[in-house]
Every structure is written in C-alpha cells, then in structure tokens.
C-alpha cells in the first residue's frame, strides 16, 4: 500500500513537472513524428498520451519505419521541401551533415531544459558550428560482455581493462565448438553501421584511420592489415558459424542463448542481457570496457538516436515542445515510474546516472557512462584525421563507402578473398568514390 501511494505521488509529481516544464500550445497542431522501432521509442510512443494530455492543442501522429527506409524517406522529403514530418529520429551520424545542409532547425533550449545535463560527447555530436541541432533520446557506446561462469570454469580472469591480445587468448581458451560455445562474437553482417562499426573502432585502436588530413584513403596500410587480420582471424577461429550474417540482433540472440563467451558490441544490449525474460545467461553475464590496442585514447564508439526538427516543418513550435518533453529529465522520471528504472532511455543525461535508483536497477550504468565519456568521437586517431565520428566518418559519402568496404571485409571473413586483397580492393573503391565525390586527387577537399 505504502509503495503504491508513493508511486501515485511520484506519478503526479512527474506529470505536473512535465506540464510545467513545457508551455502549453494554444492553437491546434498535429505533428507527425518519424521514428524507428527500437524499444525506447516504443515506450515513448506508449507514453505520448501524457504529452497530449498536458498539451491539449497538440496531436501526435507516428510513422515508424526501418532505419534505412526511414533515412531514405526523410532525405527525399526534406530535399524536396515537402514538409511531411515535424519531428525526425536521426543518428549522430546524420545530425551534423543535415545541419550543414541547412535541413534542420537550430534548437535553442530554455534554461529549464538544462542542456548542460546532456552528456558532453553526445551533445557535441549534435552540435554544428556551436549550435545544437538535435536532442538525444538515447545514446550508447560499446563494451565487452562476457560469461563469468565460463571464465571461472576455465580459471580465467577478465582484467579491468582488457587488450585485444588478451581477449584473443581468452577466446581461444573458451571456444568449445562441440558444445556450441564460441569464444568471440562480433558483427559480421556487411554495412557501414554493422560490421564496419566494429572494424572502424578496431582500426582506431590498432593505430589506423580511414583518411589522412588530405582526404586520402588509408586502408591499404599496416594498421588496417593488423586490425582486419585480427578481426577475420578471431572470428574464423573462435566465432560462430556464418558470422557474416550476424549483426547486433543476431549476436544478441546468440549471447542471450548462451552461445558466446565474449561479445564486443553496443552498451544498449546490457538491458536485454540482464533481463531474465529475454536472456538465459542473465545470472552470469559480466562486462568490461572495450579492449584496447596499440593506440589508446583514440575514438572508440558513440551512437545516439536523436530527435530533430526539419526546417520544412510547418509546426515548429509544437514540434519543439514535443522534442523538449521526450528528452527532458522529467520524461526519464516518467519512464522510471511507469516502466521501472531499468527501462529509462540510457546514455543521455548526467542526472540519470546520478540517480541512486538507476544505479541500483542497472548495475552496468557506471560502465555505460564511462564508455560514453571516453568514446572521443571528435578526438584524433594516431595520425591526425580530417573528420569526426567514433565508429564512422561523419561525411555523407561514408554510408556508401562503409557499406562497400563492409561487403569486401565480409568476403574476407567468409574466406573468399585474403585480407590483403580485400584491403587493396577497399582502398581502390574508397579512392574512386572520394574522387567522384569531388575530393580532388591531390587530396585537398573540394571547395
């Protein structure tokens, strides 16, 4: 009884606070929100009637699409000035590129929103020329998940900060193919945001980079050979069969089903792996930071899903109110109260990580925030680089280049080509695309 009264009181406070935090619109407006079908977005959709209650003049309509379809749909709509959408869900890869194109409305938030509470690397990823163009809904870095029971049984201990060399040793020891246990699971499915996210962060750790400061591709180099060689070798030796068809979801299923001893991937998986309803290894999952290579302190991994308002929206003010609501501290409270602390959108606000309830509900919270803080998306690789981005390169051409190189790397993983051949081909594919895109052959970026 006591608990339920407390819950009701918390609910009332949260709802009132959200109502006060955002001013109520007077004129009727219907805003169309384009989003993806991730768990946190589904919760937002479910709770959005609270927003409509506290903002009686604003009605919400939802368009939920698969990530790549959504990106294509949004770019077509904005480029043709059609104005079908008022709120967009975009990644931190898209935000600065779209802001540069003049597609997004700048977001000047009131003091009550507390922009300073947003984690700095995440906020920086959404800032173009000092102006914020998107608000983070949830963010993730990457970490190493491992099975403490298998480690114990083999007499192994995961160091506080593992290296790639150590991890390979563990994977070799733990692989037991006869019993369906694979030492290492990694993304193998080709795509700029799939296998190339893993490969890019490895390349940075091994001292490599995509481009030098003159935009010349740096793929056919010793650092890439070392990184991709390591990736192909560990997956061929210790990875699950058919690794080239495994993306985030497939590896999540493999790990949750007890088939992976280690898995390096997005921090957002932690919630599912700790949930006994969706994971058969909830009791034995443990975590460590991403392994390090020969170059430490370089960019590692940072992805955020953000809400932004296109310039073409006819309901700028109403859209801004919704975006502020969905990314506010009060929204975090609302989710905590309705769905439990473990379900709150992670990786965006310092206040979430300061909450003792969250720390208790999510034992991985400290690791996640530390991983995000050290993700260093704007930082430098071993040799200076011309672009930003942790596990991607923040230029429009990267989608195409990343996917093409991803396919070539996957063919090396499948054993159809050698790592050396794959990197030579990747180098020439990247050179050609960059030349065609107007980055001149001499290396100077196009005017």
């Amino acid at each position, binding site marked *: 009884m006591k608990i339920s009264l407390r819950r009701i009181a918390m609910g009332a406070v949260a709802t009132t606070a959200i109502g006060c935090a955002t001013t109520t619109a007077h004129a009727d407006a219907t805003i*169309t929100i*384009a989003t*993806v*079908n*991730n*768990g946190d977005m*589904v919760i937002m*959709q*479910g709770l959005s009637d609270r927003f409509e209650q506290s903002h009686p003049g604003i009605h919400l*309509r*939802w*368009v*939920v*699409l*698969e*990530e790549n*379809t959504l990106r*294509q*749909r949004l770019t*077509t*709509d904005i*480029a*043709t*000035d*059609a104005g*079908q*959408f008022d709120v967009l869900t975009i990644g931190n890869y898209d935000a600065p590129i779209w802001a540069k194109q003049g597609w997004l409305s700048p977001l000047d938030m009131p003091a009550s929103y507390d922009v300073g509470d947003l984690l700095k690397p995440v906020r920086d990823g959404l800032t173009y020329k000092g102006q914020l163009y998107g608000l983070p809904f949830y963010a993730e870095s990457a970490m190493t998940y491992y099975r403490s029971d298998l480690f114990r049984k083999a007499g192994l201990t995961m160091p506080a900060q593992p290296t790639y060399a150590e991890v390979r040793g563990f994977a070799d020891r733990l692989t037991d193919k006869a019993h*369906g246990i694979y030492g290492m699971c990694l993304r193998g499915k080709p795509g700029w*945001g799939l296998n190339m996210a893993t490969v890019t962060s490895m390349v940075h750790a091994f001292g490599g980079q995509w481009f030098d400061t003159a935009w010349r591709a740096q793929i056919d180099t010793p650092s890439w050979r070392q990184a991709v060689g390591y990736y192909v070798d560990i997956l061929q030796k210790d990875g699950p069969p058919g690794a080239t068809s495994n993306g*985030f*979801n*497939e590896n*999540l*299923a*493999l790990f*949750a*089903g007890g*088939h992976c001893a280690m898995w390096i991937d*997005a921090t*957002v998986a932690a919630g*599912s792996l700790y949930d006994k309803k*969706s*994971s*058969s290894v909830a009791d034995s999952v443990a975590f460590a930071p991403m392994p390090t290579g020969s170059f430490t302190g370089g960019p590692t991994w940072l992805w955020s899903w953000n809400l932004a308002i296109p310039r073409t929206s006819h309901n700028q003010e109403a859209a801004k109110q919704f975006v502020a609501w969905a990314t506010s501290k009060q929204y975090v409270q609302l989710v905590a109260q309705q769905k439990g602390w473990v379900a709150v959108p992670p990786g965006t606000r310092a206040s979430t990580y300061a909450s003792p309830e969250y720390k208790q509900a999510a034992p991985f919270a400290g690791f996640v925030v530390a991983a995000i803080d050290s993700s260093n998306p704007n930082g430098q690789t071993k040799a200076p680089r011309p672009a930003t981005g942790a596990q991607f390169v923040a230029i429009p051409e990267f989608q195409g280049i990343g996917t093409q190189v991803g396919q070539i790397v996957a063919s090396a993983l499948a054993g159809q080509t050698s790592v050396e051949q794959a990197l030579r081909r990747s180098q020439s594919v990247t050179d050609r695309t960059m030349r065609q895109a107007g980055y001149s052959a001499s290396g100077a970026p196009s005017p």
Partner: protein
Amino acid sequence: MQQSRLKRVLILLAGWCVALLLFFPILWMVLTSFKTEIAAISTPPLLFFRPTLSAYAAVQAQSNYLHFALNSIVISVGGTVVALLLSIPAAYAMAFHPTRRTRGTLLWMLSTKMLPPVGVLVPIYLLFKTSGLLDTRIGLLGIYALMNLPITVWMLFTFFREMPHDILEAGRMDGAGTWGEVWHLLLPLTMPGVASTGLLSLILCWNEAFWSLNVTSVNAAPLTAFIASFSSPEGLFFAKLSAASTMAVAPILVFGWFSQRQLVRGLTFGAVK
C-alpha cells in the same frame, strides 16, 4: 498397371515436395509468429515449442491494423479496377485492330517496367507534393494502376488474341457495335483471363512496398508500411515482425485460396485447344 500406379504415386510425392518447398517460408513465418522473441531466434531453430499469442498482442497494442488493412484494400482494389478499365480497351484495340506499330508499342510499354522505381522517385515525389497527393489513397492508387498497366495490357492482349475473330465478326453481322462486341462477346468469353489478370494485379498491388513506403506516411499507409514498422535495428523483433506479416498476408491468402480455381483456369486459358 502396377508400374503406372507407382509412377502416379511418385508424381504425387514430387508435387507435394515442391508445394511444401514453396510454402515453407510462409509456414515458417506463421510458426514464428506464435513464438516468443527468444524462441524465434534460437539456434538451432525450434520446430516444436509452446505457442503464445504475445507477439500478436504486442503488434495490436502498437499499431492500428484495421486502418492499414482498409488502406490496402481500397488502394489495391482501386488500382486494379483502374488498370483494367484502361487496359481492356487498349488490349482490344491492339489484339483486333493491330497496326504496324502495335508490337513496338507493346514492347515499349513493357520496357517501362525495366526502369528501377527509385530512378523516378524524386520527380514523382515532387509531382505529388505540388499536386497535394502525398500520403493520399488516390495518389498511391494512381501509381499502382499505372505501374501494373503494362502487365495487364500484355496479359489481356494475349488472352484476347486467342479469341477467334469469327465470333466477333458474327456479332458485328448481328449489329453489335464496338461496345456491344466487347461487353457481350469478348469479356464473357475471356472472363477467366480477365479475372486472372485482375487477381494478379491485385496481388502485385497488395505486395508493393517501394512506393507505399515512400509516398505515404500516416493517412494512406497500407499493410506494407505496417510490416515495415516492426523491423528494428536494435532489439529482438522476429516474432512481432512475423505476426505483423501473417496479419498482412492473411487477407490476400484467403482471397487467393478462394479464387485459385479461377486463377489456374485463367493462366492456362487457351493453352490447350
């Protein structure tokens, strides 16, 4: 005698194997829709499991299925009717009053199907934006009708050509005009062909995903958009996606089941004289 029986059994077995092979993806989708998310992606895949309706419940809670289904029905039926209304006269003219350019025209019509749709996305998007057709049923209906036109004209042309000219001539002798000829003679006699053309067009409209995802958002979004909304870049979704797909294909599957006799009759129409 025994040998011919054995032959029949073997043919029957082979037929069942092919049918099962073709039907297996649909069967697997339906089975997956009754699994939990974890069971849906377990390795090795589970053939026996405790069925649950949780995926259907989640799909229902998240989306308004009826809204999408109604859009699919209106757009597919509308698109098919418009396509037939345009292609019957076109095929009639080409089959019974051919000119030197008929063959070329037919090939040119078919060639429009060879262009990848994305090639004309931006022009069509701009046209739709200017004429206020974005996210409207009538807009998508128009695209579907035009998209299927080459196929319906070709199919009807083939069916009409099978029809003996003498019958139409006899009709004309008895005083039938062009309209009477088409309405009272041509259409009744080629009805299996017309029906199967209509059915094929309906199925193509129902399954079309490129345009429906690109020119609709909320109001006119059909079942393809409904399915697409359950694919997730992060998180398990196969059971929900399978449930959504099962719900999306169910109406057309039931429709296909009832009209299969007509469809087979139409597709083999005129094949054996």
